[in-house]
């Protein structure tokens, strides 16, 4: 366990200061065609301090955790803040706060498995895939575990300790058809440690059967027809839409940097079927994929309702940007590593479910696509987005037709959301989301299926 009680170091604070001790522990095992290609553990930790002086920030970090180093880190961060303040003289006001105290340790209560047992688990999966799916050209299984353990003390009185784990299993299958390789990967697992997510290998077998079926369909599939089509974005794509295309444009630092959302506050930006929320820690009484209780500035984290019934209501913020936009604090300050400063980051971003049934949504489309799984996504300050699509089917006369090969969809999110006509009544969180805004950070994304018009790449 990391250094938990940081109170004794407050004697070194001279300005507004955040002091954080953190360790990130990773396990990564990769098995390629039955061989162990990677088998590693990483533990990277240390201390950081961030200091604020009238609009100027200083930050410093060091991996050593003795008292003298911690004192030096606080002094170095203070000196850095004064360096900027003496030159820029911004004279900005004091930071607001919504302080709190919390302790959340999600270490598993189940007996821990050794790395050998994890490899044996992967071997069972690999044996099943190898024995069952004879047409495969290659198979890869990766297990990646991340435990993020943090202690925080702020000069305005917040204290927190947390241990937030996430475990992801990636299974990639490849087939060759007409001398061309086709690949499909699936992500399994989510919040919790290995033991919480992967009890019996057999539990994954039905999902692997589904994955293989979709891969074979894809290898025999068609190219999508380029242009704008009626589409159903399944939960995975609705989640990445919520995060990339809307979420980022409504982060307060991006808004201040010129995002189009700066002109849309309290205006209609989507069909009234759309409500979009960045959840702090719970959705309908259950823990979200990446729960956050107190953020890395010591703010009590609360749900941020960004779009309510189609109207843009709020930007996600940190203390600095809550001041700038004169908004309530949302608790969106997050940092990945001990050596990273907190930025405005999303937590668990999702479009809320509607009332339609997925089968009715498919039946309502004469000629279009059902897009089920994304690979990567990017968005712009204009809200123009692009998502890779690696699993999808055409819809012909209200029924699913042939699978489509890998493609890309794009559009202007605030225009596209106005074309939404149906939202399904279910809600699925994707389990392996990462966001790459300066620092790679686990995020939760989720949603129902939505029916909309979108530009699809193809031949």
């Amino acid at each position, binding site marked *: 366990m990391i250094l938990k009680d940081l109170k004794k170091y407050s004697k070194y604070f001279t300005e507004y200061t955040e002091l954080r001790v953190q360790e990130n522990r990773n396990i990564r095992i990769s098995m390629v065609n039955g061989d162990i*290609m990677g088998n590693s553990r990483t533990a990277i930790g240390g201390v950081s301090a961030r200091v604020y002086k009238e609009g100027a920030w200083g930050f410093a970090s060091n991996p050593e955790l003795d008292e003298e180093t911690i004192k030096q880190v606080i002094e170095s961060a203070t000196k850095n803040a004064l360096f*900027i303040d003496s030159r*820029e003289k911004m004279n900005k006001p004091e930071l607001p706060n919504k302080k709190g105290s919390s302790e959340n340790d999600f270490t598993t209560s189940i007996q821990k498995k050794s*790395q050998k047992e994890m490899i044996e688990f992967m071997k069972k999966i690999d044996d099943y895939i190898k024995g069952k799916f004879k047409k495969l050209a290659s198979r890869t299984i990766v297990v990646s575990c991340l435990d993020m353990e943090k202690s925080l003390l702020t000069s305005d009185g917040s204290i927190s300790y947390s241990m937030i784990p996430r475990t992801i299993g990636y299974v990639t299958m490849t087939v060759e058809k007409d001398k061309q390789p086709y690949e499909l990967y699936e992500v399994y697992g989510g919040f919790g440690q290995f033991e919480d997510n992967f009890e019996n290998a057999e539990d994954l077998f039905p999902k692997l059967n589904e994955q293989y079926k979709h891969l074979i369909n894809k290898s025999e599939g068609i190219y999508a027809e380029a242009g704008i089509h009626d589409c159903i974005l399944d939960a995975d794509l609705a989640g990445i839409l919520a995060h990339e295309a809307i979420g980022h444009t409504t982060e307060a630092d991006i808004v201040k940097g*010129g995002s*189009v959302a700066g002109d849309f506050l309290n205006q209609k930006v989507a069909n009234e079927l759309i409500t979009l929320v960045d959840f702090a820690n719970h959705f309908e009484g259950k823990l979200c994929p990446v729960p956050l209780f107190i953020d890395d500035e010591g703010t009590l984290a609360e749900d941020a309702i960004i779009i309510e019934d189609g109207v843009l209501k709020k930007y996600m913020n940190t203390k600095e940007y809550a001041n700038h936009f004169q908004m309530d604090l949302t608790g969106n300050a997050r940092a990945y590593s001990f050596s990273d400063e907190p930025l405005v980051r999303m937590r668990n971003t999702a479009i809320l479910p509607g009332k339609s049934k997925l089968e009715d949504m498919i039946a309502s489309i004469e000629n279009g696509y059902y897009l089920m799984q994304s690979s990567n996504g990017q968005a712009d300050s204009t809200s123009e987005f*692009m998502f*890779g699509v690696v699993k999808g089917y055409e819809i012909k006369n209200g029924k699913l037709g042939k699978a489509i090969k890998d493609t890309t969809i794009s559009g202007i999110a605030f225009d596209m959301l106005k074309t939404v006509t149906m939202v399904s009544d279910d809600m699925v969180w994707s389990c392996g989301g990462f966001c790459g805004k300066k620092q790679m950070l686990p995020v939760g994304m989720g949603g129902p299926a939505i029916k909309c018009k979108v530009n699809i790449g193809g031949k």
Partner: protein
Amino acid sequence: MKNIEIIQYAQDVLLKAGAEKVQCSLRKSEKHELNVAAGEINLFRTTFNTNLSLTGILKNKKGSITINTLDKKSIDEAAKQVIELAESSKPDEANDISEKQPAKDFSSGPKKPDIDKMYSNLKEFMEYSKEAYPNTILEGINYDFTFSDSILVNSNEVKFGSNKGLYTVVVMFTTKEGKKISSFNYVVYLSKDLEKSIKDCGSIDRLLKQSSEQLETFSIPEKFVGNVIITPDCMDDIIGGVTGFLGDYPLITGVSVYKDKLDKKIADSKLTLHSKPLSEVLASNYYVTYDGFEAGNSTIINKGVLKTFLLGLYGSRKTGLPKAVNQGGCYIIDSGDTSYDEIIKSTEKGILLCRFSGGNPSDNGDFSGVAKNSYYIENGKIKYPISETMINGNLVEMIKNIVQISSERVNSGYHIYPWIKFDGLTVSGK
């Protein structure tokens, strides 16, 4: 303990714990970073980092641990865990460490930053940008100096030391006037000194100017199959995709489209691509590979012919194919014989692709994505900036269809690329 003592201690502990082969590397780094947010210099960071990686092989089974605490107790515990990991693994004869090579020390760049000069460079650049492009918002700038001191040893008596000082500037910007807004764009530039003004580094000024012109964008008139001119600023999307087929994973799994193409023609004969980690004109140069070899320069594609894969030691032993002399990166494309102006003039209809927002290419090379900060070309002239335009193609086919390569090139500090006109890409609008 000194760095060499730490790493030798780690190696000894691992060998005593039962490892038959050992590789240990230690990297200590110090970073000083000035940050701009929404046009204000508002953050100064000083961070120290340490990474000690221990790898042990016994009975052909491998385990690796990375920690950043360097006391003997932490190293003892890490060595014990390496042995446990290796014992938990499966034997694989491809697991190995590099063979004995002469010990060497390498050094490049300054050891200490000039913070006052960094600050004045940044102020000068912000003032220039404000005056030249008043509607362009410098959304974010990270301007840092990083000094790293690294050492790698293994039980075959390999010992390489290297230290390196490097300045990096990353500029991200958007132009906004009233409710009109451009797409954001960004540029990265690496340097070993502070001699140049920031505006004169790589593509920075050109891309700022383009951004200032991109407040009003238009759809292309019609879908077409034809010319796309890739700029140096988004060439990495193409080169990264192609070199991605040459590494360990696609060749071990056997799905690489180039698996049987060594010494065969895979691209137009106008294309020559090098990987030059020893080049002094690239600030991102390196001297030692992650698997313990002294790095060398290579030509990956020579006049269209594939001359090397990018296999590491493990990938090479696993596939039986030759190991690369480096780990890729530091890419340089030979210049062509047509000027940039001539390339534009000779284009009847096409796209000048300045940034590409695309999905990961498929295993067969298919890709698609959105043209950002880009322009429509007609009758030899750049007509207007475009929006909501998608480009679809296949990397394998694309590099066979090179029409022209420019005589001008841009050095970003981590690659040197020209402009290249490709044919046969599908361009579709709204």
